[in-house]
């Protein structure tokens, strides 16, 4: 009987495991494999080059530029939607008029694909007739024609703003769910103890939102690691590599320069970074679970 159950388990698991192997395990293993070769992506003739692709990373200025940009991108892409989402959730939870309508409006961008979001913001940043310059002009009385995406100083920040616009809604919805799960009597204790609004927020609400924060941060980290499309659409990593991230650099090395081996080495580094972050996440998740159950 037990043996039969085991067989059925294998039968039902076979399809998802097969798909997972073909779409995840196999490409992952291939990346590791090719990172030790000089494969160009097409030719059958390639050689094992040991760690030379990884050694090259240390001397590749563009790799370091991309690593710094990735760090900036990740910190901003995690912090900004998280903080804005928390702020909006607190505002809507305070039962401001029209709260449910605002909730839907703020959530809407997450339903759009990154390509659509990228295109919308390209129009917003358009130097001559883009909404941003028009709005600045309306306020200052001038006629600015600043090319937000064409200047190295503002390109990455501009893409981060578009990213935050798309992802704030998701954080807001998760925080709203977190706020509704805070037991009413804990807030009543605050009332009886005479906590001010700020004390209530700092000492009670924000700590009690830790489980929601863990989810929001995890989603934002995972999404930001995968955040390739919007950068590709809006700047392509430019100008002058100013918005080049590791994912973008890997793409350029692999598919534009046909250095698939070197690109694979970059992807392995990115994988290790992601694995480390996920490891930290699970460790923190365990701590949160111990406190909040």
């Amino acid at each position, binding site marked *: 009987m037990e043996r039969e159950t085991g067989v059925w388990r294998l039968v039902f698991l076979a399809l998802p495991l097969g798909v997972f192997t073909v779409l995840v395990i196999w490409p992952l293993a291939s990346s590791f494999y090719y990172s030790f070769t000089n494969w160009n992506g097409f030719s059958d003739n390639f050689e094992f080059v040991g760690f030379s692709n990884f050694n090259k990373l240390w001397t590749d200025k563009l790799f370091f530029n991309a690593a710094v940009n990735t760090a900036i991108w990740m910190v901003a892409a995690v912090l900004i939607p998280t903080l804005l989402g928390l702020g909006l959730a607190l505002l809507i939870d305070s039962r401001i008029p029209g709260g449910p309508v605002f909730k839907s409006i703020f959530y809407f961008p997450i339903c759009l694909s990154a390509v659509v979001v990228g295109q919308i913001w390209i129009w917003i940043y358009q130097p001559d007739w883009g909404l941003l310059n028009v709005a600045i002009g309306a306020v200052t009385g001038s006629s600015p024609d600043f090319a937000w995406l064409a200047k190295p100083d503002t390109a990455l920040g501009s893409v981060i703003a578009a990213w935050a616009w798309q992802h704030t809604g998701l954080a807001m919805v998760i925080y709203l769910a977190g706020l509704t799960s805070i037991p009413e009597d*804990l807030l*009543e*204790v605050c*009332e*009886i*103890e*005479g906590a001010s609004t700020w004390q209530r927020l700092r000492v009670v609400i924000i700590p*009690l939102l830790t489980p929601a924060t863990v989810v929001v941060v995890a989603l934002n980290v995972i999404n930001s690691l995968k955040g390739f499309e919007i950068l590709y659409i809006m700047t392509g990593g430019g100008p002058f590599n100013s918005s080049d991230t590791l994912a973008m650099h890997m793409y350029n090395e692999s598919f534009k320069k046909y250095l698939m081996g070197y690109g694979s080495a970059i992807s392995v580094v990115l994988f290790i970074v992601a694995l480390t972050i996920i490891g930290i996440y699970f460790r923190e998740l365990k701590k949160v679970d111990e*406190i*909040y159950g």
Partner: protein
Amino acid sequence: MARLVLDNITKSFGTVQVINGIDLAIAHREFVVFVGPSGCGKSTMLRMIAGLESVSGGRIVIGDRDVTHVAPSKREIAMVFQSYALFPHLTVAENIGFGLRLANTPKAEIDRQVGEVARTLQIEQLLERKPRHLSGGQRQRVAIGRSIIRNPKVFLFDEPLSNLDASLRVQMRLEIARLHQRLDATMVYVTHDQTEAMSLADRIVVFNAGRIEQVGTPIELYEKPANTFVAGFIGAPSMNFIEARIDSSGGAPIARFGPASIPLADAERRFQPGGVTLGVRPEHILIAEGRTPDFTATVEIVEKLGAESLVYLQTGFSPDPVTMRVSPEHPVKPGDSLPLCLDQNRVHCFASDGAAI
């Protein structure tokens, strides 16, 4: 002096009135228990005293101060919740000293006061733990500690023992009684458990459908219930109710039910001929040994509780089983036919509207 006065308190949610003109004066250091079935308004009343619920009409006075529209934190009250309401991210010490921390009290002073409260409640060894690592009883002690440290004039308890198991409930009940003896404070305690009410209260307030049915000491309520609701609610197992008719044709009033009849000899009570409800506590139904029985009944179930046995009886005159107490040594068993009589001096009579006669 922390007397508490509720003056014609009403509360409505929309068009639904849930509290209908409550008048009550609670003396300084008195332990008053609000008791009643779910939805009777007792917790709403407590929350109005705390200031967590607004009052639709009437006045709440604590000490000599009208606090009807005063913020909860300024009422000099402390509240212990059914769910304990402990902050999961704070340690026991931080939970107890929560109010002091909000008031920017120096840390050394917080530590001193928390230590003192912890000693009182015997939870010193738990101070660094988080609530998740405490048992239900320990959590409730911490919640009580947080209220003690406020040094309030009035303690409010909202079903604080409901989440505890039976033995722990008895233990905590005792501790709350001790606390009341030790602290110079008025206590208002809400429960739906009448045993808890009887064992803790100086006075019990019985709520039903947003009104007070009766206020009195536990013994008053047990021995002189004002109506069938109070009679049925106070006492476990609850009072037996028997439909009867008053017959005064022979002079002295007699209550007739089924084949039985008992004289109602209380001179203070004025009986009108017609239907009444007799109320008999289980301990006032006696086995007629050497006496003429008032009626006989068949034993349906026997519950052996150790100190006593509860016997559920089938009678010809009551659709519901009649409950009686017997000594645990009594050899009664299901199917036995018992000759029974009522302790005639302890039989309660209620008119058709439920009011005691």
